[in-house]
């Protein structure tokens, strides 16, 4: 029996987002292991051209669901449309991005379908033909492989976890158009609010010194600023926790809810290493992690590790640079 899989596309008003291709890569990995039938759902008001382009490029069948209630994203519309699709197509697995939209509706789709729900999937692991979904837990320190015990499973896939090989297939997929008459009952979509892109210097920086919760106090930001002086084209940034504390400006936040950077050198000071942060900097050329916790998850992603307290190590490092300069 073929496993029926639905991928829910992530798209902006005018384009299919790269996350969609990552989910297609995830489904290809499943298809290499088990018999599967994969379709992609694109939900929106004017998404026909995007849906057709996707079917052609990915060689995958696409269902375009259109309707006035889908003009802009609402959890209410997505939940309702996906619930209907899942029942009608007798889906076994629904793949949703672990994005700010994806984790907004995925858990509620799972509730409606009485389905298993596994979030932040970073890897697949097959054991005797049974699908396992790997995610991180325990502050990012351990990898947990989960299995579903339900007929239907909903997963959210972590951005950057699966890579599409970029191949464009020869066989084209089909596009099926469905119209929904759905009327929203509990939600009104008001607007999408965009702020000006700030801090271009973060993008251009060759060295980024990033502060985490482990710097403990705002006074230590001064130390990091001083440290930054010894690196060419350097900038200061922060983890979500450091920005929430007000130590670092929110516009300088690195991670899933902030900026993605890839400088020549990334020095993480007192950052635990949760995947939310790692996703925003893992492609940096050289990564140095400083953390007093020897088990901090950040060391899994670093080239060089220093197990020390920020309060003692940063002053020592600054001294070292001063000494050699003199």
């Amino acid at each position, binding site marked *: 029996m073929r496993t029926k899989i639905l991928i829910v596309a992530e798209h902006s008003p005018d384009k299919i987002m790269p996350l969609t291709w990552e989910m297609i890569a995830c489904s290809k990995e499943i298809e290499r292991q088990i018999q599967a039938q994969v379709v992609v759902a694109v939900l929106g008001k004017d998404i026909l051209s995007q849906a057709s382009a996707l079917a052609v490029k990915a060689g995958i069948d696409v269902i375009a669901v259109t309707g006035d209630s889908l003009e802009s994203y*609402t*959890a209410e519309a997505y*939940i309702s449309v996906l619930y209907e699709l899942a029942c009608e197509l007798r889906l076994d697995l629904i793949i949703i991005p672990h994005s*700010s939209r994806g*984790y*907004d*509706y*995925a*858990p509620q789709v*799972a*509730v409606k379908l009485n389905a*298993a*729900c596994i*979030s*932040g999937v970073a890897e697949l692991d097959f*054991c005797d033909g049974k699908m396992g979904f790997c995610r991180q*837990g*325990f502050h*990012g320190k*351990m*990898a947990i*492989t*989960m*299995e579903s*015990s339900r007929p239907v499973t909903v997963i959210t896939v972590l951005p950057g976890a699966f890579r599409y090989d970029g191949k464009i297939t020869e066989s084209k997929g089909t596009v099926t158009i469905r119209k929904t008459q759905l009327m929203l009952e*509990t939600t009104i*979509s*008001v*607007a*999408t*609010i*965009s702020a*000006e892109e700030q801090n271009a210097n973060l993008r251009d920086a060759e*060295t980024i010194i990033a502060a985490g919760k482990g710097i403990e106090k705002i006074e230590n930001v001064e130390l990091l600023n001083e440290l930054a002086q010894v*690196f060419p084209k350097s900038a200061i940034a922060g983890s*979500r926790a450091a920005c929430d504390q*007000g130590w670092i400006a929110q516009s300088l936040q690195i991670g899933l*809810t902030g*900026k993605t950077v890839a400088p020549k*050198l990334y020095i993480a000071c007192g950052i635990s290493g949760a995947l*939310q942060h790692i996703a925003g900097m893992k492609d940096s050329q050289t990564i*140095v*992690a400083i953390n007093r*916790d020897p*088990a*901090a*998850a950040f*060391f*899994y*992603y670093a*080239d*060089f*590790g*220093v197990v020390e307290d920020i309060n003692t*190590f940063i002053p*020592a*490092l600054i*001294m*070292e*640079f001063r000494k050699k300069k003199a």
Partner: protein
Amino acid sequence: MKILVCVKQVPDTEARFSVAADNKSVRYDKDTAYRMNRFDEFALEEALRIKETINPSVVDVVSVGAELVRNIVRRSMEIGADNGFHILLGQEGYLSPWTTASLIAGFAAKNAYDLILAGAMSEDDMHGHTGQMVAGLLNIPAASSVILEQLKEKENTIYVEREIDATEREAVILNLPALLTIQSGINTPRYPALSHVLRARQQDITTIAADELSPIYGYEKIRNITGVAAARKCVFLDGSVEQKAAKLREILRGKSLLI
């Protein structure tokens, strides 16, 4: 306005633990320090701010877990919550969002809340699912990663802005009752006032046995827990603090990364 805040107790980021022999669970060391999930602190603060502007309001707080969890229910009351509820589970260890959500929804269904707030995710498990599942089970609208909210009491709605990324937000209006998961940074959580601490010490926490709330177990199961495969081979610098600093300088100089 009747508000419920869902809070979770998490082990400290640096807490040590060991994996059980069957690789299916972990056990935290006895000396582990537990605290309130950081995201939930923002949810509680937001609830207290609503209470200060809309009169009368009541803020209840609920947490699911073993005996130990009472500490953060008490802490929430010290910060300013009016009533504390503890859904007591006999077992310790991993709880799936389904289990936690089914218990909270079972509790909330009996209490007719206008607004339910939760943190956007927990620091240790990072699912970011429990709040939305509670909403799904109660069949009320929800918005996640909320970075701004404005209650429209007359219209019986709430305006919220959801954080999409550093530069984008989505604004929606939800009918009440509704559930919001609160993104960190929405406010600055307060410290407990002495008067609240003294009051909270005298108050009872209502304990509810999990079995009374028809929990859902086992929709997902753990196959195994293993170490994270390192993305890079990390070279740990050794020696004294000064020696480590000298080594790091040499490495960075060798890679021509210094001025």
